[in-house]
C-alpha cells in the first residue's frame, strides 16, 4: 500500500532495462560488470535507499513477472517455445535476485545476504499465496516454480561466496517451502513436490550438508506432504489428481529408500504418525528401510535365531520426541505412576477412554497418542527388562506393568481401536533392533495370551494386510509372521479365521510354503 509515486513506473523501467542487459552479449561475457552498471542505475532511481523501497521494488517486480506469465498463459500451456519466452524474463529476474544476494554487504557479511534472500523468498511466497487466493482455480504455478527452482540452482552454484552461506540458503528455502506447503497452497502442490524432490535439493539437504543438518528440515517437508495427502488417501478410491501426487510421492520415497535409508530409519516414526493406516504400501516402504552397513538374515532361514543377532539388542535412533506426544500432562503422569508401581489398577480402566477423540469427524481415535503410548510403554519395558539384567523374550516381557497396559488395550478396545493399537505395534517391526525384537515378542505374546479369538484374528489381519501388498516388506514383519504360522505354540492353523475363505487360505499356504 502507499507505494511512493512513480515507483511502479521506475520498477517497470528498471526491470525492462535489466532483462535486456541480462540477455546482451556483454553481460554474457562479464555478468558482474553489467550488474554493477545496473546497480548504479537502481541507485540513481533511489531503489536501494531504504529497506522499505527494496521490499516494494521486489514485490512490484514479482507481481509484474507473474502478470506477464498470466498474459501469455493461454499459449504457454501448449507450446514449449512460448514457455521459453516467459522464461526469458523470469530467468533474468532470478539472476538479478541472485546477484543482489551474492553482492549485498561485504563478502564476509553473511547476514546481509541471507536477510535479503529471506526477504525476497518471503515476498515471492506472499505474492503466490495472494495470487492463489485471488485466482483460485485459475491459479498457475509456472512463474513461481520457475523463480524458486532457478534461484535455488543459482544460489547452489559451486562458488566460494555461496558455499560459505549454503546452510543458511537451504534453511531459507525450507522455511519458504514450509510456508507454501500443499495444505496452504494446494494449487502449487505439484510444483512444490518437484522443488522438494529436485535432485540438487535432495543432494544438498541429505547428502552434502554436513552432520545431516538438513535431515530434520527435509523430514518436516515430507510430513507436510503426508499430512496433506492423508485425508485423500483415507478413502479407498483415489481420484486422479490424488493418484498423481501419491505416485510422485512413491517415486521420491523410493529414491530416499535407495540412497538414504538411514534417513527413513531415523524419521520413520514421524512419517508413520501422519500416514493413514490404510496406506499400507507407502508405510511398508518407509518401514523397510535399514542401515546400509547392515546385512539382514533371510527371514525364511530355517531355525533363524533372531535373539542371537548382534544388532537385536541395539536401540534404533528415533528422532521424534514421541514422549512429548503423550498429552495431557496428567495422562502422562498417571501413566508413569502405573508403569512404576503397577498401581492403581483403576488406571487401566480409564486408559482406553483417553484414546478416543471427539473432535475430528471420521477419526474416532487419537492415532498420534496411540502411537506415542505404544512406543513409549515399549521402550520403557525394554529398559525395565534390561535393568533387571535380562533381555526381552517371550517370558521376560510378561507379567509387568507394561504388558498389563498392552493386554488391557488388546482386550478393552473395540475392533477399530484394537486395529489401530495393533498397527502401532506393527509399525515397529522393522530391521533387526531392540524395538523390532520387543514388539515382535509382544505381538506374539498377545496372540498366545488372547482371551478372545477376535484379538487373534485382528493380529492376523494387521500382519496379513501388510504382507499381501506389493513389495517391499519390512524384515521384522516377515520374521514375526513366519514365527506365528510355524511355531505350534500359537496353534495358528486351528483358527476358523485362517480358513474363512479360499483366497485367505491360499495366501497363508503360499506364505507357509515359502517358509518351509
Amino acid at each position: 500500500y502507499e507505494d511512493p509515486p512513480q515507483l511502479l513506473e521506475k520498477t517497470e523501467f528498471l526491470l525492462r532495462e535489466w532483462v535486456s542487459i541480462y540477455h546482451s552479449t556483454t553481460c554474457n561475457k562479464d555478468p558482474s560488470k553489467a550488474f554493477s552498471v545496473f546497480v548504479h542505475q537502481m541507485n540513481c532511481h533511489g531503489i536501494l535507499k531504504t529497506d522499505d523501497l527494496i521490499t516494494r521494488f521486489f514485490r512490484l517486480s514479482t507481481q509484474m513477472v507473474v502478470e506477464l506469465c498470466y498474459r501469455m498463459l493461454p499459449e504457454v500451456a501448449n507450446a514449449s517455445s512460448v514457455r521459453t519466452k516467459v522464461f526469458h524474463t523470469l530467468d533474468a529476474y532470478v539472476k538479478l535476485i541472485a546477484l543482489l544476494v551474492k553482492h549485498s554487504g561485504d563478502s564476509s557479511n553473511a547476514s546481509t545476504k541471507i536477510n535479503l534472500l529471506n526477504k525476497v523468498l518471503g515476498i515471492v511466497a506472499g505474492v503466490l499465496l495472494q495470487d492463489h487466493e485471488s485466482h483460485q482455480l485459475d491459479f498457475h504455478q509456472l512463474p513461481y516454480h520457475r523463480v524458486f527452482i532457478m534461484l535455488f540452482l543459482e544460489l547452489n552454484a559451486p562458488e566460494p561466496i555461496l558455499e560459505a552461506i549454503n546452510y543458511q540458503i537451504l534453511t531459507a528455502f525450507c522455511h519458504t517451502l514450509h510456508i507454501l506447503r500443499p495444505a496452504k497452497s494446494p494449487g502449487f502442490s505439484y510444483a512444490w513436490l518437484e522443488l522438494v524432490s529436485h535432485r540438487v535439493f535432495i543432494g544438498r539437504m541429505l547428502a552434502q550438508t554436513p552432520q545431516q543438518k538438513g535431515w530434520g528440515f527435509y523430514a518436516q517437508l515430507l510430513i507436510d506432504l503426508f499430512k496433506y495427502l492423508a485425508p485423500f488417501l483415507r478413502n479407498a478410491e483415489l481420484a486422479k489428481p490424488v493418484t498423481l501426487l501419491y505416485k510422485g510421492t512413491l517415486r521420491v520415497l523410493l529414491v530416499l529408500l535407495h540412497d538414504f535409508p538411514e534417513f527413513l530409519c531415523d524419521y520413520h516414526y514421524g512419517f508413520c504418525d501422519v500416514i493413514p493406516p490404510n496406506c499400507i504400501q507407502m508405510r511398508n516402504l518407509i518401514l523397510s528401510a535399514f542401515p546400509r552397513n547392515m546385512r539382514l538374515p533371510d527371514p525364511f532361514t530355517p531355525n533363524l535365531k533372531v535373539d542371537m543377532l548382534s544388532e537385536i539388542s541395539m536401540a534404533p535412533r528415533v528422532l521424534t520426541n514421541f514422549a512429548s506426544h503423550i498429552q495431557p500432562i496428567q495422562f502422562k503422569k498417571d501413566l508413569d505412576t502405573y508403569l512404576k508401581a503397577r498401581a492403581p489398577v483403576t488406571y487401566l480402566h480409564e486408559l482406553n477412554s483417553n484414546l478416543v477423540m471427539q473432535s475430528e469427524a471420521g477419526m474416532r481415535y487419537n492415532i498420534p497418542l496411540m502411537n506415542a503410548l505404544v512406543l513409549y510403554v515399549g521402550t520403557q519395558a525394554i529398559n525395565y527388562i534390561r535393568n533387571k539384567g535380562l533381555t526381552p523374550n517371550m517370558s521376560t516381557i510378561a507379567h509387568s506393568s507394561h504388558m498389563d497396559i498392552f493386554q488391557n488395550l488388546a482386550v478393552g478396545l473395540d475392533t477399530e481401536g484394537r486395529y489401530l493399537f495393533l498397527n502401532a505395534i506393527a509399525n515397529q517391526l522393522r530391521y533387526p533392533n531392540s524395538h523390532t525384537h520387543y514388539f515382535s515378542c509382544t505381538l506374539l505374546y498377545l496372540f498366545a495370551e488372547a482371551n478372545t479369538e477376535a484379538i487373534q484374528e485382528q493380529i492376523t489381519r494387521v500382519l496379513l494386510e501388510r504382507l499381501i501388498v506389493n513389495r517391499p516388506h519390512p524384515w521384522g514383519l516377515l520374521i514375526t509372521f513366519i514365527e506365528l504360522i510355524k511355531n505350534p505354540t500359537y496353534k495358528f492353523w486351528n483358527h476358523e479365521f485362517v480358513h474363512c475363505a479360499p483366497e485367505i487360505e491360499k495366501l497363508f499356504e503360499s506364505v507357509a510354503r515359502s517358509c518351509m
Partner: protein
Amino acid sequence: MVKDQFGMVGLLTFIRAAETDPNLVSLALGQDLTALGLNLNSPENLYPNFGGPWAEHPCRPQDIDYHIPPEYLINCGIREKLAQIKLTKYKDDLLFYMFYTNTGELMQLAAAAELYTREWRYHMEEKVWITQAPGLGAVEKTSTYERGTYYFFDAQNWRKVPKEFHLDYSKLENRPTLPTQY
C-alpha cells in the same frame, strides 16, 4: 469372526475387490514399485539424475545442468548465427549419438530417419541398427528373410561390428516417419 472392516472379512473384501475394481484397492494392494522408472538395483545413488516425481525415466546427460563458465553458454544473441542442425550433413556416428542420447524426443526419430536413408535398418527385436557389410552379402535370401554377415552398430563400444544375422524382414523397421508438424 469380527464382523466389521477391522477383521479378516474386511481384508477379504479388499482382496475380492481387486479382481473387479483394481482402482479401488490401489492403496491396499499397492503397485509394482519396480515399474516406476527407477533402477532400484543401481549400485550408484539415484538422486543425482532423478528426473522428478512425474518422470518415467532418469535424466539424460543433456538434462542435467552443470555449472560451467557463462561464456560456454550459448547466448541468445548469437543463437540465430549458429548453423542450423542438419542431420544430412553429419557422419553416421553423430547420428547414432543423437539417436541414443535423445531418447523420447523428436531428434531420436529424425536421426533414425536419416540412418534409414543411409541404408541402416533398425531391428525391432534385437534393438540394434544393421547395415550391409560390403563384400559380405547375404548367403541366403528369400521373400521373407535373408541370412549372412552384416554390420551392426555396437552402442556399448561405439563401433560397427560384423555379425552373422538371420534377418526376418518383418522384424526390420520401415522408414521412420516424423510427426506431420515437423
